[in-house]
């Protein structure tokens, strides 16, 4: 647990970088500091490993004041990841990862062994070990940066805009990877970003900071989206916070109807009966995997689905996995479908049922009214 | 033997300030050789530097040439040319020019080549013709480095004009050579001090030139480079 107690930073010229701030980053959780530039988020982060000293207040890690140890010693026990990774260009990937263990006085063998292990943990290959940083892509370099920060198994990890400099596709990968790692390692992570989407995706709790280092709100992402405390937070969250908040609610509550679903081998009688009751039929194969939407008018007169012209089948867009995926995914599935209907599938991809936009509304309503989400990510 | 008093005695002897081997004459000779060496060097090297820098081609040739020139012993070249063609103006000027070309060429090339591509893109985008891009965008932006090249050329010229006196005529180096030949250490030291003065005046001149020629927008970024 990292606790900031009345921590402030005022520069000699009078500039306030951080106003007296109280904040607690829970153990084993990701706490995100988010805000525009000049909001003191990086300053707060760097005060934890004493790269910057606060002018007031104190910072405790698990109850121990960070000032009670010499700074270098303190830093060796705290992982630190920054934008562009900051790898040492003159050292191989493996030597980079071995840095802190060697500083801590581990034997070469032990440092090497543990570093190789971490290299694989962060999703790189053994063959990357002897490369130099310039031979890696930006995303790979960042993975090495994470491995280097984690190798000595520090309980606390500081991450300063670590994924800001890579392209969106790679960023997405790295974010997913971080969540995966965190579910195994359960570090106390303090994560700085200016990207609110990243904050909401990664944070167990998010601290929104304003210019001049003022903490405006400190809440869980869902709470933040539901009840922004003031205009600044609301503005920072952006216009579609209502829709985004749906990602914190399970799609389990969506009422899925199986009636519009017809298998390719459904008897003709049955097909004809369904046609009269439904404007759209979802055709599935014998394993109940979706094939496409069919307008009721295009169902062959004899009810034989084998005769449907390929051109009459309309793409079903994308499906959502019931329970595992969020209400937001369900809504998205409906909005993107030409039939305005969401297709819910089970873990194996077999269709459970469909729901129209209108049928989703009560579930959405319930989520917005409910004070807390039924399930977390 | 006290260097300074000997030199002072020689420098303050009135007769040393008159005539064809007097200090003003030698000083002017030194100045003249140096300036000519830089100007001839510039005539050759500056256009070549602009061309190679603008086209970003020939870098290897330029840098190798500069390296070889740094290795050339002036004294040897002067002696060789004097032995081969006799005591002529060319015998001094060829080695001197050989040493003023490389710094101008190298720095002009590096300066123009390393101009921020966004700047040249913008200049092209505004419809400037290639030579206008060169003259209005690349050269002003490269001016700090170009001037450094000229400064090194001038430093070389002043220093090597002194050395060239070893085997030919004129310039302040004569006092050192003649003084050594006649074991007049006052003349040797006095000449050496005059050469030091000439070298410092040269630097002062370039410091002023920088103020005048480099756009104030670039002054803060200016850094000396060899």
């Amino acid at each position: 647990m990292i606790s900031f107690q009345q921590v402030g930073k005022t520069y000699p010229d009078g500039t306030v970088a951080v106003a007296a701030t109280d904040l607690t980053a829970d153990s084993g959780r990701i706490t995100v500091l988010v805000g525009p530039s000049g909001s003191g988020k990086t300053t707060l982060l760097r005060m934890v490993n004493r790269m910057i000293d606060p002018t007031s207040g104190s910072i405790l890690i698990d109850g121990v004041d960070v000032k009670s140890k010499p700074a270098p010693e303190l830093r060796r026990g705290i992982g630190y990841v920054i934008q562009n990774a900051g790898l040492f260009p003159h050292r191989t990937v493996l030597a980079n990862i071995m840095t802190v263990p060697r500083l801590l006085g581990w034997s070469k063998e032990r440092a090497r062994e543990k570093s190789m292990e971490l290299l694989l943990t962060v999703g790189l290959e053994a063959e990357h070990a002897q490369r130099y940083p310039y031979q890696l892509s930006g995303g790979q370099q960042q993975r090495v940066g994470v491995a280097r920060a984690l190798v000595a198994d520090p309980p606390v990890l500081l991450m300063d805009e670590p994924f800001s400099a890579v392209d969106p596709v790679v960023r997405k990968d790295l974010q997913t990877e971080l969540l995966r790692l965190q579910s195994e390692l359960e570090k106390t992570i303090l994560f700085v970003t200016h990207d609110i989407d990243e904050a909401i995706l990664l944070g167990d709790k998010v601290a929104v900071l304003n210019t001049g280092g003022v903490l405006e709100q400190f809440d869980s992402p869902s709470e933040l989206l539901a009840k922004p405390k003031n205009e600044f937070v609301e503005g920072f969250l952006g216009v579609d916070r209502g829709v985004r908040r749906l990602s914190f609610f399970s799609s389990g509550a969506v009422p899925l109807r199986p009636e519009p679903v017809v298998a390719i081998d459904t008897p003709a009688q049955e097909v004809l009966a369904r046609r009269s009751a439904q404007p759209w039929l979802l055709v599935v194969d014998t394993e109940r995997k979706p094939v496409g939407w069919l307008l009721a008018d295009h169902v062959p007169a004899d009810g034989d689905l084998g005769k449907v012209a390929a051109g009459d089948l309309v793409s079903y867009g994308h499906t959502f996995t019931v329970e595992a995926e969020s209400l937001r995914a369900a809504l998205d599935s409906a909005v993107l479908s030409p039939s305005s209907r969401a297709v819910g599938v089970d873990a194996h991809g077999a269709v459970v049922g469909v729901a129209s936009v209108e049928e989703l509304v009560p579930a959405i309503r319930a989520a917005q009214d409910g004070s807390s989400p039924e399930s977390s990510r | 033997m006290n260097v300074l008093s000997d030199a002072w005695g020689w420098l303050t002897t009135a007769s040393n300030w008159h005539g064809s081997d007097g200090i003003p004459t030698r000083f002017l000779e030194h100045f003249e050789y140096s300036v000519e060496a830089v100007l001839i060097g510039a005539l050759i090297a500056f256009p070549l530097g602009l061309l190679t820098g603008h086209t970003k081609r020939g870098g290897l040739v330029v840098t190798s040439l500069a390296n070889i020139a740094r290795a050339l012993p002036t004294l040897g070249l002067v002696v060789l040319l004097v032995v081969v063609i006799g005591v002529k103006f060319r015998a001094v000027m060829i080695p001197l020019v050989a040493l003023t070309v490389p710094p101008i060429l190298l720095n002009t090339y590096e300066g123009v080549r390393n101009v921020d591509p966004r700047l040249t893109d913008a200049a092209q985008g505004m419809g400037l013709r290639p030579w206008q891009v060169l003259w209005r965008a690349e050269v002003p932006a490269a001016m700090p480095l170009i001037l450094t090249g000229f400064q090194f050329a001038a430093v070389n010229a002043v220093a090597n004009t002194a050395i060239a006196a070893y085997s030919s005529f004129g310039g302040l180096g004569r006092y050192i050579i003649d003084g050594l030949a006649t074991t007049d250490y006052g003349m040797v030291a006095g000449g050496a001090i005059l050469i030091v003065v000439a070298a410092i005046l040269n630097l002062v001149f370039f410091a002023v030139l920088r103020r005048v020629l480099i756009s104030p927008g670039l002054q803060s970024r200016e850094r000396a480079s060899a």
Partner: protein
Amino acid sequence: MNLFPHIPSYLGTYGSLIQQQLTMALSSVLFGLIVAVPLALLCVRYPRIYPPVVATLTVIYSLPSIALFVLLVPSTGLTQTTVIIPLAFYSLAALVPNIVDGVRGIPEDVRLAAVAMGYTGARRLVSVDLPLAVPPIMAGLRVATVGNISMVSVGTVIGVGAFGALFTAAAQLNRSDLAVTGIICIVALALICDLLLVITQRLLTPWNQRRSR
């Protein structure tokens, strides 16, 4: 014309001349380097002293060797020391700005990472700052080495010029072959040393993606 004519015996042998030339040139580079590294690090540490240091070095660099040699003779005599001292100063002038630029040029994120991982001052200097400054330091060493090997020959004016003695002899005996030989030997020595430095740099910096020019 014989490229390597018999040289008058009073001048020594090719071997002894090579040895003299390299002794004077390389020891002056070495002395320059020994002083340049701490001086440059001071300039990095206290940026305020850098401009006056650079200005002083620029002035020193512009002082002609021939003048410095003869001005030193009363103090250090007609010895190799007299040649080595000014050349060491020239090396210093070539090296200090390169080292300063090199250390200052270390990317901010690398510097930050080093501090955040708990490097202390001296250890960081040895394991991070100096290794990263190797390419610019080597560039400075190349300039200083090549220049010094060539400039040693001016020492013949005070009687210690190694291959420069061939130029004196060429002028006195009116023998162009001696001058040509002297020039070739000096240029060859300089370029061989330069090549060795380039190879050394490649070996020292396998991590450097920009190939040295």
